[in-house]
């Protein structure tokens, strides 16, 4: 009645894509993320050097045309290490986010649909999990089960569960009183069906945005754990571990610490930009969780 602009709603896919690529954040983030992903994929078929074969004679070579990022203390090519290390970072983050979503989203949706004690129990569970500083618990988990990429994934994944549960629950709770959900209920649809048909698709954008954020956090967390020696183990290269190895040589070979660090920064930056862009495009009013 007054000149309120039409409430924001999802436009059809084609224009969404166009809109997305017109968004500077999204475009930059997309390009960076795509490059990192391409680098990870490329490393399966080709890296400048074979990093499984240590050539100790070539150790600690400063950046040159042959080794653009230099070599490490075993004579491995750092560029190749970073390329292969990206697989580890991506894999850990993807699976950790996957665990978080696969467990957290159904839990959150269930709590929102069911309400009552289920909801209360979920919230209390979240309280307990959030009461443990995440990194501390990750350190404990990896200490119990031994350091390694798989345990790092589990440790990071566990902390993604309540995050996604919370986002899904909040999103679902805001949708249940919507008129189209009421209409679906009036059409005799059950909670499961409504969740699948109406709730999930409509919280998907929130989850996607949260997913990119958690993905970025996952990469940082993996780097942190590896830095403490609790992440991926040699000979599998990992960015955090490279930093750990390099920090003692910062004086003589700063490039050993700078390039893996930059790899982390660039990747996380790319993902965050992607997330920001997605959020702008999908739901301008969505607030960043955590």
């Amino acid at each position, binding site marked *: 009645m*007054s*000149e309120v602009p039409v409430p924001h709603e999802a436009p059809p896919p084609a224009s969404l894509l166009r809109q997305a690529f017109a968004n500077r954040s999204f475009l930059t983030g997309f390009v960076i993320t795509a490059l990192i992903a391409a680098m990870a994929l490329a490393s399966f078929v080709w890296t400048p050097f074979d990093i499984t074969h240590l050539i100790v004679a070539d150790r600690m070579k400063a950046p040159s045309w042959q080794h653009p990022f230099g070599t490490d203390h075993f004579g491995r090519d750092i560029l190749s290490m970073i390329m292969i290390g990206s697989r580890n970072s991506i894999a850990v983050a993807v699976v950790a986010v996957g665990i978080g979503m696969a467990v957290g989203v159904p839990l959150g949706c269930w709590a929102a649909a069911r309400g009552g004690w289920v909801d209360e129990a979920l919230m209390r569970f979240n309280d307990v999990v959030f009461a443990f500083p995440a990194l501390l618990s990750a350190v404990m988990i990896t200490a119990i089960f031994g350091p390694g990429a798989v345990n790092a994934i589990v440790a990071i994944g566990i902390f993604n569960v309540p995050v996604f549960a919370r986002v899904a629950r909040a999103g679902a709770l805001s949708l249940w009183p919507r008129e189209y959900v009421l209409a679906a209920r009036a059409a005799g649809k059950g909670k499961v069906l409504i969740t699948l048909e109406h709730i999930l698709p409509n919280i998907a954008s929130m989850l996607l945005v949260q997913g990119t954020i958690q993905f970025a956090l996952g990469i940082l967390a993996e780097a942190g754990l590896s830095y403490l020696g609790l992440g991926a183990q040699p000979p599998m290269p990992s960015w955090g571990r490279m930093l750990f190895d390099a920090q003692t040589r910062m004086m003589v070979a700063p490039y050993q610490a700078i390039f893996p660090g930059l790899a982390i920064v660039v990747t996380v930056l790319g993902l965050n930009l992607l997330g920001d862009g997605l959020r702008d495009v999908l739901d301008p009013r969505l607030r960043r969780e955590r």
Partner: protein
Amino acid sequence: MSLLEIEKLTVSIGRTPILKGVDLSIEEGEVLGLVGESGSGKSMTALTVMRLLPHAMRAAGRVTFDGIDILAAPEAAMNRLRGDDIGMVFQEPMTALNPVKTIGEQVAEGIRWHTGASRAEAEETARKILDRVGLPAQKFPLSRFPHELSGGQRQRVVIAIACALKPKLLIADEPTTALDVVLQAQILDLLRDLVDERRMGLLLISHDLAVVADMADRITVMRHGEVMETGETGRTLTEQAHPYTRQLARASTHVPARAGPPAPETGKTPLLEVASVVKDYAGRRASLFARPAPFRAVDDVSFALGEGQSVALVGRSGCGKSTLARMILALDRPTGGAIRLDGIEVNALAEAALKPSRRKMQVVFQDPYGSFDPRHKVERLVAEPLHLMEKQPSAAERRDMVAAALAEVGLAPKDMDKYPHEFSGGQRQRISIARAIITRPKLVVADEPVSALDVSIRAQILDLFADLNGRLGVAYLFITHDLTVARAITDQVMVMHDGRIVERGRTAEVLDNPQSDAAKALVEAAPDLSRALARRLAGRE
């Protein structure tokens, strides 16, 4: 010279024009009604005068207030004008006040800023104006927070803020649209009194001709960013010289042609029977140990509805009518009592057993934007209730049924492949109705189905309801606070107040001759264009 003079005002966002050369003027102490439908540019005109347009908008032309060139004035000068010489009241009282500041602070703040008064002096002035707008000190001390006030009370605070310093011009942008009719009447009375008392100019923006007809000395009609017609209220609205003015006036008094109500068939089980229904909600806990006292939203309501009947359930906001509707639709379970549809007690059934009953009743909601999942196409949306059929139709059958339903509501079959956002509000409400009738229900519950629509669209949708009632024999339960809707389309009216049904009867009888206090209040407060014009003409003679 006029108090406010707007000449050739254009406002644009990027290259899209919003206002295209608006001319308008208000004299001191004059009430100007600014009328128009959604997107006509009424609010943008008002915000331009305040120089509070959203960032991206650019204004050009000339706006002179009290000799000051508004568009060219520096920001500091505007700050001096705003709240002092020009006050503004907004549409949505629930969000117009800062939730973390007391009402006293919010009223006194502007006074202190403009007059340099001390805190105590400012609070004294604030106290006076709050008393004046009907918020007496003993019930509404300055230390109250907005959330402790109802919508109507909050709107009074906003008015107090706007009028605290006796502005020369008050701008009221749809000040009553978010309120129910009774509150609307009270707020309009208050505005009228304040304007008279303080000789303020008032720019009253409204979509409702009846409201403006009652209040305004002159009226300006806008459409698509342009002024259609300006003139003295009585003459403009009675002569209806401009075709658009005529269209608006007709639409707001439109009564659809309806076949007479079906003869009541005695002895047959009524379609819907509501027996002693009660609904309690858990109240707020007063202390840690006391059990919270329940809040009774619906209190011992009983009525029956025959096949093909059209009944209105009217009442002020918060009277329990929507809760009752939800229980009838089996979306909520009553605390006590029984609801029978075709003799089957739906409130006792499990969700799975409800299907046959659900097939017989469907729903149309108020908000044409919120009632569709934005991610589904119309075909899927309209077909949703087909889920209730014994036998699920094939894809082809489904398309046929959707096409038929769309045809019933005046839409083309090809519309089923579009997304809801591609439609206008009126078209969406048609889709909503198509969804409601696709299972050929016997009862459609419509919760404020036209109150979010512009008058001309509203008239069309009312026609559609009437038409379907006649052709398909659907019974309606209309939930509304708008008596004109009730009058237009229903045979019977039930008046609800504080959870109870206080009056029931034939529509015309109840509306013309209300018996209960609640009904009387509603009827008296309801704006009515013809009565307003009659009063105005009578007043002039």
